[in-house]
């Protein structure tokens, strides 16, 4: 049955139009509210300056009018009675006291930050400050700019142990593949998408350690998988847990959590030894295949299907069937997910999946894995030199005149400016030509401040000594070493933290979140940029700077963080709420207030930032992108043949050998094994049998729900009612043995921590495995310390220890840990009436 739009729609409507009593603003969402950068199309219906309701925008090339519950509830987020919309401050002596906040002005707030920053930087050195960030939010990708350009400290940090989200895969992309993030091809960058003659529907899609439907992970619009299933794509599922997609898969590989590398190596064993690989592609474009094949066949470090079947706890036939089905399908793609990052073996898992995509010849072909090219918008040709010159002249004029005056004509800028360079990606690649990586080439956004740091300060980045590849790649302090600095003062104490767009005490990212809390309490000054009074801000901060939602700001939705050639969208401002500001506004205004040298003369205002660092990727001004709303980047396939993957325009991949490095020169140069190997999770019945007697269950965390994005949305009643309580899934047979009834509360524990969850008895988890939800806090509970909205009641991250990373500092066991499970007599059920009475009445 073919699906089609069949009623009147708003196709072809301009970016703003009137409908009845409403002004309708078309926009492309990212965050806040937190989400991955998908850029879903929305129509915001505004009446008298108030957001009345939202609908999906049929004009969006990928989402085509469809929308998930979180955006459908946007109004309830924007006007939520608990949202903070004015700056507020509180005496550091009163941290954790919910009623001690006082409203202040932005001027007061900036002055306070300047006073603390100037004093601390002069007294202890700027490295004593840290900017801590979360994932998904638009501020997350700006953490390095905020630390290094605004405050002048090298210590930007995403606080998840081992940066166990995206980066283990990302590092493998940069160093093994030499191209950026091979996403499944869902025709997002092609006109007419699936109907474009260049596109081929994949014969098989492997969904590996990912739940794309609720997560939209990394910017992939998850329901694109459904679109392709309807067009004939078959599925292979690799996931310990059964999910909706796996029920519709031709083959299910329900492996033991944390054993992905073993399974991938076994697939490679089948494909190599049965000669199912693409010999021509391997000969031409892969480096080190002989050594790689020898490793896979190595009696000790290699992996036969029989050995993997034992390690992964799946039938050996399933391994053969899955590997053959994948290798024989032309084309085939792998949607690879977070689970690959969330163990110590994540770099190797990523390496193996890239090897699978490569040796089967599926890299950069229609319906296979698409990768980003040096030219971010290959369909758009412009005269780069004259554009750059025009921009330079205009900017000179702007900075010498009053920037607010009409003389600096925005129209003039809009007309002349398209981009500072035709190939913005060269910006970064050129800046460090001998060290340039594919990630830099694909993501032209992240080094404003890093280049302005002195070498001395760069060397002081926390973790630089132990994990130079991690720190230099991401321009972030190493998360686990930052944990040491915050909790023990090693290598030096952190005295001030900017907690931006992260609720790190809630079980979102930080491991041993209770210890992060105690450590950060020692700081002399902490401030936050956020939208709600989270337990992290309530417990730790002295100043709250309120952020705008997508409805209140101009911004760009950087689909897949610009790392995949699909869409770029305009986030168009529709309304004003309180005195909120966007991340970019705060960066530029606070940077100017602090007299940041790195930002001096760089951006006139937030729109200029969007021109130079965001809309430029679409080779147009922000104003033009705003009117276009959505832009498809255009896709070239087999770019390794045409020099479109390298700044020097030579054919091949952006690695030292110019080929996909199945034998990784970068891993070897950094003291890691250049070839993949399996390592058992640090905590498992096999690696720690004594501990496992005490903690007999394998604990996995972090499954996605449709209702929430990580720790967000708990105060939106219409979403909370979809999932009122913190749930844990346990197999009915295990529950029966322990005397746990459906809906009964349990306590899980290990040597590091404990947490309470409501049991959901379900056969979708394997016996001996429990799956705990993450992100929980309870905004309806008492906010005062020590309760802090119940943030430590169901906090599974207190049970994850820091420092269980790969040799290179990546990955951590969030999805392969151990615990005990004990039934509780008490109930902690959420009373939805309380949630509704506190948060249901919107403030407009």
């Amino acid at each position, binding site marked *: 049955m073919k*699906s089609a739009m069949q009623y009147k729609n708003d196709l072809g409507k301009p970016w703003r139009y009137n409908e009845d009593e409403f002004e309708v603003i078309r926009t492309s969402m990212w965050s806040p509210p937190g989400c991955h950068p998908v850029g879903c199309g929305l129509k915001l219906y505004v009446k008298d300056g108030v957001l009345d309701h939202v*609908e999906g925008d049929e004009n969006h090339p990928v989402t085509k009018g469809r929308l998930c519950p979180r955006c459908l509830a946007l109004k309830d987020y924007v006007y939520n009675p608990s949202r903070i919309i004015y700056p507020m401050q509180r005496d550091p002596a009163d941290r954790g006291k919910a009623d001690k906040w006082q409203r202040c002005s932005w001027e007061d707030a900036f002055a306070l930050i300047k006073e603390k920053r100037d004093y601390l930087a002069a007294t202890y050195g700027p490295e004593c400050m840290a900017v801590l960030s979360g994932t998904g939010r638009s501020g997350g990708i700006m953490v390095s700019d905020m630390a290094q350009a605004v405050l002048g400290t090298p210590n930007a940090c995403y606080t998840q142990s081992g940066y166990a989200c995206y980066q283990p895969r990302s590092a493998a992309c940069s160093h093994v593949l030499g191209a950026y993030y091979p996403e499944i091809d869902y025709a997002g960058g092609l006109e007419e998408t699936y109907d474009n003659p260049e596109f081929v529907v994949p014969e098989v899609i492997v969904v590996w350690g990912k739940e794309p439907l609720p997560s939209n992970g990394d910017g992939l619009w998850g329901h694109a998988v459904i679109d392709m299933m309807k067009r004939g794509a078959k599925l292979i599922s690799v996931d310990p847990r059964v999910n909706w997609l796996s*029920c519709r898969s031709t083959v299910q590989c329900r492996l033991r959590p944390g054993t992905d590398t073993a399974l991938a190596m076994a697939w490679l064993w089948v494909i190599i030894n049965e000669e199912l690989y693409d010999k021509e592609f391997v000969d031409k474009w892969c480096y080190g295949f002989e050594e790689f094949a020898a490793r896979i066949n190595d009696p000790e470090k290699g992996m036969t299907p029989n050995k993997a079947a034992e390690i992964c706890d799946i039938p050996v036939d399933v391994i053969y069937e899955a590997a053959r089905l994948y290798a024989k399908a032309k084309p085939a793609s792998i949607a690879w997910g977070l689970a690959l990052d969330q163990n110590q073996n994540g770099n190797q898992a990523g390496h193996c999946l890239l090897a699978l995509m490569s040796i089967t010849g599926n890299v950069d072909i229609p319906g296979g894995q698409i990768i980003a090219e040096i030219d971010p918008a290959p369909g758009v040709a412009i005269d780069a030199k004259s554009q750059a010159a025009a921009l330079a002249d205009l900017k000179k004029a702007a900075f010498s005149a009053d920037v607010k005056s009409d003389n600096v004509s925005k129209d003039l800028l809009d007309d002349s400016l398209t981009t500072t360079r035709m190939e913005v990606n060269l910006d970064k690649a050129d800046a460090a030509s001998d060290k340039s990586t594919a990630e830099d080439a694909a993501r032209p956004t992240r080094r404003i401040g890093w280049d302005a740091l002195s070498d001395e300060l760069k060397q002081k980045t926390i973790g630089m000594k132990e994990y130079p590849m991690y720190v230099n790649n991401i321009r972030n302090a190493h998360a686990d070493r930052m944990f040491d600095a915050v909790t023990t003062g090693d290598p030096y104490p952190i005295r001030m933290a900017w907690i931006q767009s992260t609720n790190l005490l809630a079980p979102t990212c930080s491991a041993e979140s209770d210890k992060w809390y105690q450590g950060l309490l020692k700081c002399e000054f902490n401030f936050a940029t956020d939208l709600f009074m989270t337990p992290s801000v309530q417990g730790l901060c002295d100043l709250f700077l309120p952020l705008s939602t997508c409805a209140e700001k101009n911004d760009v939705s950087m689909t897949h963080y610009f790392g995949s050639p699909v869409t770029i969208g305009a986030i168009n401002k529709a309304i004003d709420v309180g005195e909120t500001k966007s991340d970019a506004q705060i960066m530029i205004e606070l940077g100017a207030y602090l007299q940041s040298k790195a930002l001096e003369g760089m951006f006139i205002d937030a729109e200029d930032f969007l021109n130079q660092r965001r809309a430029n990727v679409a080779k147009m001004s922000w104003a033009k992108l705003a009117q276009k709303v959505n832009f498809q980047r255009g896709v070239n396939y087999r770019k390794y043949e045409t020099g479109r993957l390298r700044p020097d325009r030579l054919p091949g991949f952006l690695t030292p050998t110019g080929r996909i490095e199945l034998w990784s020169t970068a891993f070897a140069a950094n003291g890691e094994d250049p070839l993949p190997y399996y390592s058992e999770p640090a905590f498992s019945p096999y690696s720690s049998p004594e501990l496992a007697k005490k903690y007999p269950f394998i604990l996995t965390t972090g499954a996605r729900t449709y209702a929430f994005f990580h720790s967000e949305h708990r105060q939106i009643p219409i979403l909370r009612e979809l999932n009122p309580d913190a749930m844990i899934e346990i197999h009915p047979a295990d529950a029966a043995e322990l005397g746990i009834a459906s809906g009964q509360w349990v306590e899980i524990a290990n040597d590091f921590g404990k947490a309470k969850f409501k049991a959901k008895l379900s056969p979708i988890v394997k016996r001996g495995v429990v799956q705990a939800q993450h992100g929980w806090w309870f905004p309806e509970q008492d906010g005062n310390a020590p309760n802090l909205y119940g943030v430590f009641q169901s906090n599974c991250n207190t049970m994850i220890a820091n420092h269980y990373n790969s040799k290179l500092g990546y990955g951590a066991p969030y999805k392969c840990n151990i615990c005990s499970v004990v039934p509780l007599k008490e109930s902690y059920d959420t009373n939805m009436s309380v*949630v509704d009475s506190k948060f249901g009445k919107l403030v407009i």
Partner: protein
Amino acid sequence: MTKGILINYEFCTGCHSCEVACKKELGLDFGEFGIKLEQVGPYKYQTGDLSEKWEWTYLPVLTKACTMCEDRVKTGKMPACVQHCQAWCMYFGDVEDLARKIDGSSRCALMTGAVTS
């Protein structure tokens, strides 16, 4: 002509978009629904041809509160649930037309409310 909503529920992923879109459209309180997602499974069959196969089926059910989005439909729009369905497995129209779409290639359910026009 009686209007109905056809659900090609083979592809219903259980994303709740129909539920939330409807609640926003009708302004329903928490605990109240105009369309409500129901599910069968997940369980694994032990018997017959389906042995070892998984069942996990979602089907949104229209409640008494469903108006078939009469006001939206008058302006030419689709009902809110149909508009936002992420899996694009819902169709709105005259029941006779919808019935003709059911061709046996997929699992379908045709639902009506009490609204006719």
